[in-house]
């Protein structure tokens, strides 16, 4: 008897990797481009987090002797009209994008999950009224709502994060709601209901874990959207106020008039934005295909 038990254990060799490593291997094998973009995304995170260490100069360190220097070994991205190093400013710009991106996308995801789970699971009149509200909310362009809010509150990071979070959170609740509606009718939910589990327990233990894949995907896709909208707002001069080095802000304002003398001023911030948003989107796409096959091809 003992020998049978022994062989049963030894013939099932467990892979030594945890679920995370297995996922990484799957990503590299099935979505090579997604994996490359994931690496770029990690690089962006790294640059954002360690901007203070990586940046060769201060973000607002002015050097009048080195005004409008083209890209060189000393200044890989050139310098702007005040002699500030563009590479350093782009690195600090990454930091701002990381902070705003993660806070706003995180807030948006939390709002989407709470609203989506409540409306999807409870249904009824509450759902009906909320859905009409979401309809109305989604009729307003994100940028217009932001511009109006900033016009009342004044520009600044906290209000941008709060507004973007609320904005995308309400819109995204639809995606979570539809996932909840399809999970709600599963046998295990009915079983939990019939054993008298509380609504909170059902939502927390049965619904939430089963809608996690779309939640993760929602977070990554929101990240790209947040970075793009924030840069648009900064470009209009309504984002984080200068001299904070936002990527969008670097493309507008005073720097704009000097672009004709130093065209590299127009290149670096835009290129950073495009590469980061592209990598985030591709990574999000790959995640969606691997985690949540039902959502494939949708956006």
């Amino acid at each position, binding site marked *: 008897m003992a020998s049978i038990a022994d062989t049963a254990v030894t013939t099932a060799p467990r892979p030594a990797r945890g679920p995370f490593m297995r996922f990484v291997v799957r990503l590299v094998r099935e979505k090579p*481009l997604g994996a490359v973009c994931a690496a770029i995304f990690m690089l962006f995170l790294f640059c954002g987090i360690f901007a203070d260490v990586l940046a060769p100069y201060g973000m607002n360190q002015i050097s009048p002797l080195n005004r409008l220097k083209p890209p060189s070994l000393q200044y890989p991205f050139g310098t702007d009209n005040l002699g500030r190093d563009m590479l350093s400013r782009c690195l600090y710009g990454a930091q701002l994008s990381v902070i705003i991106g993660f806070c706003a996308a995180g807030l948006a995801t939390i709002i989407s999950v709470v609203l989506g789970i409540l409306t999807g699971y409870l249904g009824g009149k509450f759902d009906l*009224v909320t859905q*009409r*509200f979401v*309809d*109305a*909310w*989604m*009729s*307003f*362009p*994100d*940028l*217009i*709502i932001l*511009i*109006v*809010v*900033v*016009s*009342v*509150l*004044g520009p600044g990071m906290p209000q941008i994060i709060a507004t973007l979070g609320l904005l995308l959170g309400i819109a995204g609740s639809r995606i979570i709601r539809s996932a909840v509606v399809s999970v709600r009718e599963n046998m295990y939910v009915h079983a939990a209901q019939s054993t008298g589990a509380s609504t909170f327990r059902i939502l927390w233990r049965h619904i939430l874990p089963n809608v996690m894949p779309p939640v993760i995907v929602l977070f990554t896709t929101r990240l*790209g959207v947040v970075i*793009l909208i924030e*840069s*648009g707002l900064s*470009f*209009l001069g*309504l984002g984080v106020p200068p001299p904070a080095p936002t990527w*969008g802000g670097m*493309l*507008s304002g005073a720097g*704009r008039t000097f*672009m*004709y003398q130093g*065209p590299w001023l*127009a290149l670096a*911030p*835009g290129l950073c*934005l*495009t590469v980061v*948003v*592209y990598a985030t*989107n*591709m990574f999000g*796409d790959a995640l969606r295909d691997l985690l949540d096959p039902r959502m494939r*091809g*949708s*956006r």
Partner: protein
Amino acid sequence: MQAYIARRLLALIPTLFFASLIVFVTVRLIPGDIIDLMLSSNDISAGKKSREQLEMALGLDQPMYLQYFRWIYAILIQGDFGKSLWQNTPVAEQLLVRLPITFELGALALLVALAVAIPIGVYSAIRQDSAGDYVARSFSILMLSVPSFWVGTMVMVFPSIWWGWSPDVKFVPFSQDPLRNLGQMAIPAIILGCALSAVTMRLTRTMMLEVLRQDYVRTAWAKGLDEKLVVVRHALRNALIPVVTLIGLQAPLLIGGAVILEQIFVIPGMGLLLLDAVSQRDYPIITGVFLIVGVAVMVINLIVDLSYGVLDPKVRYR
């Protein structure tokens, strides 16, 4: 069909009510007093007026619910959006002049988006998983990731450095000189259209793939029909129906994108009106633009839904 239209119109009423509430609450209830802001920053529009006069002009001296009813009553019954604090002209007048310009930019951008998206989407679907499909799909995500204000900036800067040419930014209305007007609108419309084409392309591809697997398409192939006929007449016509809905969903993106491009190319549409109003803290204009944009998007969605009913008989009877 009539019942469908009636149902759709009825469903619009609560949505419109919520929209007006969102506009009202956003502008009035947000912490931070508009008047304080106007007075403290020594506004041009606030300069000559006292606190009480400003409160009167904005109607802030009354209880909140009364303010809401007075505001919505004036708009619904008299079409009165209030007066601009800065120019002292009716806001409705300004909106009427600016709305068609943004509309033109949006419509042109939409045309560009469809002209780019549908052929590439169809190609991507009939050559699924080929190198071309892969390139097309990566390209579409790239279009989604390039900020339109960056492209706009580069179009302003680089041609002028290389060839001494820059886009014409002295706006001419369509009614005055249609050709020159279209020439001015072309570049922003192409930039906006390319950004929008990404999502449409992906949807066209997905829908084409689904339709191409249908029995009637297999029958068409089996009959020995030409590839062009099968793809265009049998598959594409059915695949495009959901794409029509997407146009409605993209309306907010179109208007949002137009704001930035209007600012770069100095096109005096709703976006530029809003941005100017924000810098002058002209709240009646801000409120007016905010509301009109939301209502415009809802009307576009209504039209899309109704045309959907015409295009797809299945929808009417649901």
